[in-house]
């Protein structure tokens, strides 16, 4: 029963919340969509926390995404042990980088008086959920080898079944506790995106790359360009 709630119902709640929540937030409280940077109040510690955290999480995120989208490619790559080791070690290193950055960011936030003013309850939730996610992730990578391979074989079918609206939870509920925590907290993370500072990654400014530098806006229609 618990398995159904956590692995067959929760995913849909999370996706539903992400979809409607972010559309709602973007449309009706667009002003509140911001990176909420606190660099202005504290910059030095942020440097050592934010950079490893962000680069780490970006790599890990795309790693997971690749495994969801192209499990066969991952399996093919992992056929040669050396390539498997390279992939696992790189991913683990980025995970460590992510954890280091995250810990430094948490320490920074609770050590710096000025930052209390700009720390919300949701920020605390974000820290907790990220910590759970990163620690369980590293735990799984270290103790249940080799994650990149069994992920592609066990989890990718599950995630695909979720997206096919026919969740197949038989394999998932039998996974070790740490893996189940990792999955559940991932869904919670996805679900709270629209209600936390996670929102800022949805507005990453890709468009900047192909936009002309200068921007002039005219009020009157009669104007050319």
């Amino acid at each position: 029963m618990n398995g159904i709630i956590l692995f067959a119902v929760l995913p849909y709640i999370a996706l539903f919340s992400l979809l409607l929540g972010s559309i709602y937030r973007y449309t009706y409280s667009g002003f509140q969509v911001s990176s909420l940077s606190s660099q202005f109040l504290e910059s030095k510690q942020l440097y050592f926390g934010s950079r490893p955290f962000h680069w780490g999480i970006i790599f890990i995120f795309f790693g997971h995404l690749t495994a969801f989208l192209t499990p066969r490619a991952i399996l093919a790559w992992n056929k040669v042990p050396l390539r498997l080791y390279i992939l696992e070690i790189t991913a683990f290193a980025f995970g460590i980088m992510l954890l280091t950055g995250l810990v430094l960011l948490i320490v920074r936030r609770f050590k710096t008086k000025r930052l209390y003013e700009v720390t919300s309850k949701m920020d605390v939730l974000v820290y907790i959920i990220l910590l759970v996610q990163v620690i369980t992730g590293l735990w799984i990578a270290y103790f249940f080898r080799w994650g990149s391979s069994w992920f592609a074989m066990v989890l990718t079918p599950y995630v695909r079944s979720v997206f096919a609206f026919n969740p197949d939870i038989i394999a998932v509920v039998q996974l070790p506790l740490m893996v189940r925590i990792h999955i559940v907290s991932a869904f919670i993370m996805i679900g709270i995106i629209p209600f936390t500072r996670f929102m800022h990654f949805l507005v990453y400014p890709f468009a900047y790359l192909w936009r002309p530098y200068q921007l002039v806006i005219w009020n009157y229609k009669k104007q050319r360009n």
Partner: protein
Amino acid sequence: MKNIRSQISMVFHLDKCIGCHTCSIACKNIWTDRKGAEYMWWNNVETKPGTGYPSKWENQDAYKGGWEKNGDSLELKGAGKLKGLKTLFHNTHMPTMDNYYEPWNYQYSKLLDSPEMDDQPTAEAVSMITGEKMTPKSGPNWDDDLSGSPIYARNDVNMKDLSPSEKETMFQLERMVMFYLPRICNHCLNPACVAACPSGAFYKRGEDGIVLVNQKQCRGWRMCITACPHKKVYYNWNTGKSEKCILCYPRLETGQVPACMHSCVGRIRYLGVMLYDADRIKEIASCEEKDLLKKQLEIYLDPNDPEVIAAAKACGIADSTIDSAQKSPVWKYVKEWGIALPLHPEFRTLPNLFYVMPLLPAMAQINDDNNYHTASSALWDDMKNPRLPLKYLASIFSAGDVNIVGKILEKLMTVRLHRRAVTVGDLNQNEVNTAMLASGLTPEQADGIYRLTSLARLEERFVIPPAHREEAIEMIEETHIHKGNTGFGFMDRPKRGL
């Protein structure tokens, strides 16, 4: 001349600034007296020499503001497409609150609420960020009137070209010299903040050239703060959005003078329209540094030239705007008389705020008998040996070109000689004529400068073009659709429900 635009520009007359900070307070009261904006001074007044606000803002080796020429192309120094997106997670050169100051307030309520005690109650300083007690150690004008000059004035970035002895003489007690530098956003023609904004929240208004931030679109990536070489974009630490001087556009659109300018006690501020050739922006912003100033002044077009007028009309510029441009005091100071220069043209943003050079601190020498020089020949001599080194002024206003600054001071001096000959009459007319010839002014021009500098009334100092906001609705709809809306329109279209 296919792409003519109009720009609201400004002139600040530095000889008239008394450093009273009324402009700053007017601005603060209207715009930045809120949470997250306490530390912001969209308008601030600095004492020069001094390090300014934020501290040493002119030092682009540290702050990486503005543009730099890279071969034939022009690049942002500390931001830009790849550089910006790479440093999104931690903006390397962005100033923090400590570069400005931590805003504080005093616990005034303690004075009223205190129980009866043996000692007087005190109102201690508390931080406006954390609410904790603090000892203010810096502020927006901490080095006002050269106070703390060993730390502040001596570290002025603009003295880099001065020899050690020149520098030393500036700080000898008898020769101490200073002037005030009021600063607002320059509403540049080639704004670095607009170019640096990854979200596209910054924009320049086509009709009047005011640079604004769309608060809804700003995502707090903070690149603008690094990019603006004048450090006139501020980060609101509470909302997580950038803010800047809006040139009081709600006032301008209703024909009112911006608050800082209206409240100016010394009447040092002028505002008017300049027409310019927008197609030349890129070429001029990326020219050789020695030509920058000259070329920037070339971009502004003569509003009385029939060819310019015809081209401007073809570009859709309203007749009323052209009319305002013809009466613009900025045109007179900057182009007709050539006595006002932009701040730090070497930042390559083509700023639209011009400063009439301060003559008095350069000239104010005291004789051995403790009197100021008054003879015309002595005054003229001082031009060659000014109390405020021209190199210092040149480093601020002309990218280091001493000749341009010297020429302007000569003109200002000539105006004084001419007016003295007219009103006091104790000068040899030949002497005045020689000065006129040397500086290139005519007596009419000298009278014009005198008039606009000292007698001009509000309508002459501020020539605000009608904003034609009534036409703005055309941007949204054809106007006939709004017939019957009493000019207001509906927040939601009055559409029949399903």
